């Protein structure tokens, strides 16, 4: 009997299975090492990095909402040099691809980060978070303007040969337009969706629940939106898609694959259970076995419409 094949390729990165962990929900990997076998998951996507360490937003930063949570962490991170010095040595020991997420406030910052990461052999791929304001151009968010998205992805592309994934924001009128701009700028893959902007109010205090007033909604509540966007983008562009948004079970993974995703990222579910990603891989394998599916790739884009 042929062995069950869970492997996929995304942007040229071979993954043992399609289940990755989403940036910002899995730290730098080591935080979860006591609870998850890191070598059972497809890839680790690390917490978003900037050139310099970033303080992030005031507290409170998180609040639970029905079926989800809002966060306004404010991209707090240790900065790229500390990451390379203190976090990479741990990741080097793990036989799982590491994809590094990063963001900047100008095109030049994005390019500088990509150039720095290009020199790090432990980095299997990079994921560009374009949901940040361009401070040189009136603060317009890169990921909500196709021209800005194109220019930032192009600049990153020119500095690195590493597999380049662009993480798309759902806070746009037409996500297909954004996806096309990134494809044109030679991205290797697209990951979607980032969190959906939302807010929560505490009636007792008449204050916003988050100090930042608004935050990003994640968790099962956003899954239908994410599925719809993955479906739309997969029909419009040729690039492989990494589906993200409220994935908590193997069933969710299978739905994203049917909608056209080649791989997925598990995010908020890591907070519900630190072993979630590994559990999902095991359940996915069981589903394939139980349903006589030899190769997980058979399911990619296999939605019957």
């Amino acid at each position, binding site marked *: 009997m042929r062995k069950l094949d869970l492997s996929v390729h995304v942007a040229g990165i071979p993954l043992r299975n399609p289940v990755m962990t989403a940036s*910002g*929900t*899995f*730290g730098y990997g080591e*935080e*979860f090492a*006591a*609870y998850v076998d890191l070598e059972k998951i497809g890839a680790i996507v690390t*917490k978003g990095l900037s050139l310099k*360490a*970033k*303080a*992030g937003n005031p*507290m*409170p*930063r*998180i*609040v*639970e909402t*029905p*079926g*989800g*949570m809002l*966060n306004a*962490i404010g991209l*707090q991170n240790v900065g790229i040099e500390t990451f390379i010095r203190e976090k990479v040595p741990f990741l080097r020991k793990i036989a799982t691809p590491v994809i590094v997420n990063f963001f900047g406030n100008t095109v030049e910052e994005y390019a500088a980060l990509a150039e720095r990461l290009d020199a790090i052999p432990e980095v299997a791929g990079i994921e560009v978070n374009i949901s940040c304001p361009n401070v040189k151009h009136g603060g317009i968010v890169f990921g909500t303007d196709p021209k800005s998205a194109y220019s930032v992805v192009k600049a990153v592309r020119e500095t690195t040969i590493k597999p380049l994934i662009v993480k798309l924001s759902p806070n746009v009128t037409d996500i297909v337009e954004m996806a096309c701009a990134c494809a044109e700028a030679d991205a290797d893959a697209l990951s979607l969706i980032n969190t959906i902007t939302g807010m929560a109010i505490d009636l007792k205090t008449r204050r916003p629940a988050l100090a930042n007033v608004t935050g990003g909604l994640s*968790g*099962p509540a956003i899954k239908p939106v994410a599925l719809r966007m993955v479906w739309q983008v997969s029909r419009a562009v040729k690039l492989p898609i990494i589906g993200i948004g409220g994935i*908590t079970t193997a069933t969710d993974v299978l739905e994203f694959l049917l909608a056209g995703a080649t791989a997925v990222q598990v995010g*908020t579910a*890591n*907070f*519900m*259970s*630190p*072993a979630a990603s590994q559990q999902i891989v095991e359940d996915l394998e069981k589903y394939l076995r139980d349903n006589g599916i030899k190769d997980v790739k058979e399911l990619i884009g296999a939605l019957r419409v």
Partner: protein
Amino acid sequence: MQFKSMVVSNQEVSPGYYRIRLTAPRAILEAKPGQFAMVRVRDGVDPLLRRPFGIFDVGSFTPEYPDAPRQYYFDILYKVVGKGTSILSALHFKDYVDVLGPLGTGFTPGGTGEENILVGGGFGLAPLYFLAKELVKTTPLKVFIGGRRKEDVLCVTEFEQLGIDTYVATDDGTLGSRGLVTEVLEQHLCREGGKRVVLACGPEPMLKAVARLCENYGIRCQVSLEAAMACGVGACLGCVTKGHGHSENTPSYRCVCKEGPVFDSTELLWEEL
């Protein structure tokens, strides 16, 4: 560690406050006072996140059936404040929850010859009782308990059963002296000298006042903070607090879940808490 845990008992100990006993692997006996557990009160996505609770006690018993193996457990003392704790309060014997823990740092009490002064309010008494149980065998100990009303003053009997001097203050005077626990604490601090350490857990305004008092008296003080958390393992950065010397250019955040919940009071930027 992460484990499935069975409810052994779940009782209301004071109006709105419950004590739940949950089974655990033997390793729970290694939990340090001040550490906490993240509890998933039921399967599914509502509530979505775990809830953090300070460990109140650990122990073991032998169930009453033939050849029963020794069963280990830990206790949580909690107040019903929202959906998660409300669901928890409705659980019965043989219901199951999912537990992550013990997590975080524990208290570092005083050494030989030092008096340990415990100060707490509300369910903040949970880790202090766990601490007192360990300390009472070896070191001199006092406990100061504050609350709004009599109903908010927990564990007095437990502490007295350990033979510990217990001082109580309530805002409305329905139990102990009328006023703030820090007032009673200050009377004690200025009356008696000697080497001592203050270990506190409770509402933030109380901790702030305790920290200030200890600074004035030059006493080492540790506080256990409470915060909303998502992951509990230092990854989401949702529960941070500002450390001493924090500024926008030199961020100095501490994760309450991982670097805490117990901190030396001088480590924190109290003005901005």
